[in-house]
C-alpha cells in the first residue's frame, strides 16, 4: 500500500501545507511578484531561482515547501526517489515568450536562456538538481488533474521496486493563472527514521480516491 505523507498547495497567492495556511499575499499581486515575495519570506537562498521561468519557479517553491524541515531526503537513497509531475499547459507560458522573440523578423532575438525552458519536464530537472534526486522521472499532460493516473503510476513504480517514494502532483502556469498541488507519496512500510517523523501526524491519504477528495477540497 502507498500513502501520502505531506502535501502543499500554491494558488490564489496562498501557500497551504497539509491543509494549513502557511503564507499569503495580496490577491491582486501578479504571480511573479507573489512568488518572489514568498521566496524572500522563507529566506530561501538559491540563486538559480531567479533564472528560472515561471513554471520552474512554482515547482521549485512547491518542492521547497514539501522538503524544508523534513527528513524525507535523508530516509531514501537518491535513486529511490522519483519525480512524477503533470499539468495542462505543458510549457506554453514560456513557449509564447520564445515565439515573441522570433515573430518579428526585424527584431529577432531567440535566446538559449528562454528556449531551454520550453519543455515541461525542465521543472522536474530543477527539482532533481536542487535536491539531488536521481530516480524515475515522468512528465504527463492532461486537461485536468488526474489523481488516478498519478496514483497508479507511482504504485507501479513501487511494486516493480523502481523507487520507494515520489514527489508528485500538478504544477501549471498559463497566462497569469497558476496552480500547484504537490505531495510526497511513499510506500507505507516507511523506513524507521521516517516513521518517527510521520507517526504523530499519521498519513493524509492512502488511495487515489482519497487523493481525489483532497484535491477537490482545495480546488
Amino acid at each position: 500500500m502507498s500513502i501520502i505523507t505531506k502535501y502543499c498547495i500554491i494558488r490564489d497567492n496562498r501557500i497551504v501545507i497539509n491543509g494549513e495556511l502557511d503564507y499569503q499575499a495580496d490577491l491582486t499581486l501578479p504571480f511573479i511578484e507573489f512568488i518572489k515575495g514568498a521566496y524572500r519570506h522563507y529566506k530561501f537562498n538559491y540563486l538559480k531561482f531567479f533564472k528560472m521561468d515561471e513554471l520552474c519557479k512554482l515547482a521549485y517553491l512547491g518542492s521547497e515547501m514539501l522538503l524544508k524541515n523534513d527528513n524525507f531526503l535523508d530516509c531514501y537513497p537518491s535513486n529511490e526517489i522519483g519525480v512524477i509531475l503533470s499539468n495542462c499547459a505543458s510549457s506554453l507560458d514560456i513557449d509564447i515568450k520564445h515565439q515573441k522573440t522570433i515573430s518579428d523578423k526585424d527584431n529577432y532575438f531567440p535566446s538559449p536562456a528562454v528556449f531551454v525552458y520550453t519543455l515541461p519536464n525542465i521543472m522536474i530537472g530543477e527539482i532533481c538538481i536542487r535536491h539531488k534526486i536521481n530516480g524515475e522521472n515522468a512528465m504527463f499532460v492532461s486537461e485536468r488533474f488526474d489523481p488516478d493516473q498519478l496514483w497508479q503510476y507511482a504504485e507501479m513504480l513501487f511494486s516493480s521496486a523502481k523507487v520507494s517514494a515520489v514527489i508528485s502532483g500538478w504544477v501549471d502556469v498559463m497566462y497569469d493563472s497558476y496552480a500547484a498541488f504537490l505531495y510526497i507519496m511513499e510506500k507505507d512500510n516507511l523506513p524507521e527514521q521516517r516513521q518517527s517523523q510521520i507517526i504523530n501526524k499519521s498519513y493524509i491519504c492512502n488511495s487515489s480516491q482519497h487523493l481525489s477528495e483532497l484535491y477537490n477540497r482545495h480546488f
Partner: protein
Amino acid sequence: MNKVFIGTDNIITSLGFSTQENIGNILDNVTGIRLHSDPNLSRNPFFASIVDDMLLAVHFDGILNHFYPGKKPDDFTRLEQLLLLSAYDALSKSPVPADNKATLFILSSTKGNVDLLADTKKQLKNPNKLFLWDTARFLSRSFNNPNKPLVVSNACISGLLAIIYAARLIQHGKYENVIVCGGDIITEFVASGFQSFQSLENGACKPFDAARNGLSLGEGCGTIILTSKEEYASTPKIEFIAGASANDANHISGPSRTAEGLFLAIQSALTESGLTTGQIGYISAHGTATPFNDEMEARALNRTNMQDVPVNSFKGYFGHTLGAAGVIESILTIHSLQSGKLFKTYGFETPGDIEKINVIDEHTSSNINFGMKLASGFGGCNAAAIFAKK
C-alpha cells in the same frame, strides 16, 4: 505480471511513410537530412530531415475520407496529419481492436502543434489545439477509442518513456493493448531555439565521430503497438522485458560528465530484466552527435561494462525526431532483433575523443537475442529499455 509483446508499427520520416520504406533507405545508405531554405522555418538555411509537403498531402488525401468525410486537409494540423497516417498504418496491419475498452492510446510529443503559435488565425479557430491533451484526444477519437488517452512530454526521452509506460500498464494488467504514437514537426520555434544554442551540425550529423559538431533536427512520427496477447504479436515475436528512467541531477541543458542518470537507468533496466551486460547483443544509442551527448553515452557504456557491445545511432539518417525519436528508434531496434540486421551509424567515420565503444560502421548480420534502447534529454532525463527475441 503480464508479458508484453510487440505488435505492428509504423515510421514516417523524410525517408518514407512506412517502416519498410524507412528500413529500405537505411539499407541503401540514404540520409534524409538536407539543406532547407524555407524562410518560414529559419532565417538562414539549415540542415534538417523534413517530410515532403507534397507526399504528405497525397498520403493524407488517401485516408481523409475514411476518417472525416467532408473535411478538408486544411482542417488538420501538420502533426495531426502525420499522427493519423502513422497510427492508421500500424493499426491497419494489426488485429488489435482500437475501439475497445481494453486498448489505450498514449501520445509522446515535446511540442505538439507548436506551429500554431505563429499562425494566429488558425490558433483562434481552435485554441485547444495548442494543448497536447487535445492532440491525444484527436488521435484516440479518430479511432473511436473509449479511453482517456495519456500524454508523455518528457523532452527527448518522451517516446521511450511512453513505451516504458505502456509496457508497465500492460504488465500490471491495466490494459491489454497500448498504442504508442510519437510525433514532432520541424518549426521555426524549434529550429530557432537549437540555432540559438549553436547545437546544429552544418550538414548531416555525425554520431560518435571525432569531427561531430552538433545535431540535425528531424521531423517524424512513429507508432508501436504493445500487447499482452501473444496472438497479436508480430513475428518473430519480440517482448519488452524491462525499462527505467533516471535523472542526472546535474544540469538542465547539458548531460552529466559522469553519465550518472544514464548509468542508473541502464542499471535499473538490467536489474529488472535479470540479464547481465554480457547478454546484451546490441544497443541503439541516443547518439545525437552533439559533442557532450555522445561523450556521455560512451561514458555510460564503459561504466556499465558494455563498451564492446555493438552500438549505433540512427540520427544520421533522419535527424533527431525529438518526441518521436524513442518510438521510431525502438521500432528499428525491434526490427534488428527480428531480422538479425544491425544498421551502420550513418555519418560515423573516425572514432576518437570519447571513451572507446563498438560503433557499428557497416551494415552487419548478427544473431542477437537482447537489444537495448537508450535515450537522454534536456532536464537531465535518461531512459533505457530492453527488448528480447522469443
